[in-house]
């Protein structure tokens, strides 16, 4: 698309989360409005990992936070476990929070530097009165063991004594503390070295299997996404471009933007240098997005139709949806 549409929705599935026509706009000064997310719809089926991929400014992080109502979206609906979140009162929304958790990009900033690890993990348990001190202590040890940190060593330490990867493990443990149904991971590995990246990605997979989680995995890196996701949604300037299972998406790319993203992934192979051939320039400002298809200003296949009419998501292969007037033909 970058367009709209709901062809990719699965109303019959065991959905955990259904997002429809979600719109988030920020006011910047008097008449500057950043259109961060513009009418995005998708759903999450229990046990799947949906990856949301796009470059900076595409609205992927904003989307993740808007689902948790931090802050509330401007319009659209977010239905989580059959409860409409956007219209919930403060107290009812609070009651929903344990089931939906989030892991943030910056491993250091997401832990309070003043609190020892045991306090970081105890906080959600105390807020929700999950047991007495002994039970809480036991739970903390269990969580730390689950993320492969030795409780005896780490309990009393503070975040700045840990490396980025270890901080991220603690964040994961904290997100798991309340036995959530869904975790939104906002670029959880992009601040880490490659060797550590792999550890955290594996850990997330393990936790997903062990606790039966449903994940939404936000990332800018298609290669990272490939390893962990069961479904990928590509976003550009606040709109959805393409939705497909990862293998299908990479082998049978339909959207010109997705193709450019795939081609730009640096491959550690001297025979296959990365290519910038497919698109030029940089994304336009989200304050003043192009009409019709938002990608048309950089798209090699753009036509007049793309300026006039916004493409809708349609199914081009089983489970493969694309919002483009001129999808790539094999």
């Amino acid at each position, binding site marked *: 698309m970058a367009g709209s549409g709901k062809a990719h929705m699965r109303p019959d599935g065991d959905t955990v989360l259904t997002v429809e026509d979600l719109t988030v706009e920020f006011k910047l000064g008097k008449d500057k409005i950043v259109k961060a997310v513009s009418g995005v719809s998708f759903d999450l089926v229990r046990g799947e990992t949906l990856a949301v991929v796009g470059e900076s400014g595409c609205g992927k992080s904003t989307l993740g936070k808007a689902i948790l109502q931090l802050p509330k979206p401007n319009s659209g609906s977010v239905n989580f476990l059959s409860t409409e979140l956007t219209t919930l009162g403060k107290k009812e929304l609070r009651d929903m929070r344990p089931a939906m958790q989030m892991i943030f990009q910056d491993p250091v900033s997401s832990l309070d530097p003043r609190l020892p690890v045991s306090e970081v993990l105890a906080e959600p348990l105390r807020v929700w009165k999950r047991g007495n001190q002994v039970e809480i202590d036991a739970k903390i040890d269990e969580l730390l063991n689950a993320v492969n940190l030795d409780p005896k060593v780490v309990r009393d330490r503070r975040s700045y004594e840990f490396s980025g990867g270890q901080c991220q493990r603690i964040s994961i443990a904290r997100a798991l503390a309340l036995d959530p149904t869904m975790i939104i991971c906002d670029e959880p590995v992009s601040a880490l070295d490659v060797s550590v990246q792999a550890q955290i990605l594996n850990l997330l997979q393990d936790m997903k299997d062990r606790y039966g989680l449903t994940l939404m995995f936000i990332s800018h890196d298609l290669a990272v996404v490939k390893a*962990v996701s069961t479904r990928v949604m590509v976003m550009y300037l606040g709109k959805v471009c393409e939705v497909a299972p990862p293998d299908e998406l990479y082998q049978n790319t339909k959207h010109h933007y997705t193709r*450019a993203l795939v081609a730009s992934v640096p491959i550690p192979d001297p025979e296959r240098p990365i290519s*910038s051939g497919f698109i030029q320039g940089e994304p336009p400002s989200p304050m003043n997005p192009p009409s019709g298809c938002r990608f048309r200003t950089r798209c090699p296949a753009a036509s007049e139709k793309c300026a006039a009419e916004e493409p809708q998501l349609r199914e081009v292969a089983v489970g493969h949806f694309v919002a483009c007037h001129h999808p790539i033909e094999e």
Partner: protein
Amino acid sequence: MSSLLKIDGMSVTFATPRGNLRAVNDVTIELLQGESLGVVGESGSGKTVLSRATMGLLPGTATRTGTITYNGKVISELPKDEVRELWGTGMAMIFQDPMTALNPVRRIGSQLTESLTVRLGMDKKAAKLKAIELLKRVRIPDPESMLRKFPYQLSGGMRQRIMIAIAVSCEPELLFADEPTTALDVTVQAQVLDLITELRKESNMAMILVTHDLGVVAGHTDKIAVMYAGDVVEYAPTRQLFSNMKMPYTEALLKSIPRLETPTGSRLPVIEGRLPDPTKNEPGCPFANRCPYVQDKCRAEKPPLKDAGNNHFYRCWFPIGGEK
């Protein structure tokens, strides 16, 4: 081709409150004219310090030893003022974060023409014309209006292009590029890398490309130095390195990179453990505690840099595929 830069046995230590921190250990590297070298390593490997130390851009707490020869002249013992003569006109640098590497309170034009007027002695008019030409070379649309802009008015990709224009403005022979694309989006990263390669070809400029990403160096360098804990652990022509790697660390690093071919749901190979403490001087190979092929000798004695032929060097007792 003749030798442009030769670093011989360079070490860099920083004085810290916890003692001396060894950032770079006894590194020897040679670069020919027009050649490009990729320096790859994770954070804490000393790759950024290596490039800054070579140029002489270190803070006062650092001590550098070893010899640096540039164009046949030993520059490591020169006084600062004479080294500075080389900066800009001989060696230039582009930095990682285009958001912080341009002066926020000065216009693009004044930052771009500064080297031209101060270093090359051009008058204002000639410098302006040259600046416009430079902006065209880095593919910036409407260069004339660009001169009057401030950095905050530009996107990250544009700023990185400006920085490249500044770096190449005095036609240096050697370009240090310190993670030039890490802060950029992937599609922009590809464009900027292509641009740098093109500019190098045009003027036969050598480059040292510092990055954490083996994928970035693979397509844009002639040879690669892999760094770990301050050591160059493997040093080889690019194709040679990828086709015949000797060093277990290089292999582990390569394997841990997620790829588009990775089957969904598969486990990624990891490097366990962590870097050794750079303030302590422990015996043995610094990678020993993380190496899958570790043997007793590795823990006892640090391996020397060995020659595998074909300009391929490595630092391991038990290299992959055996010696030679």
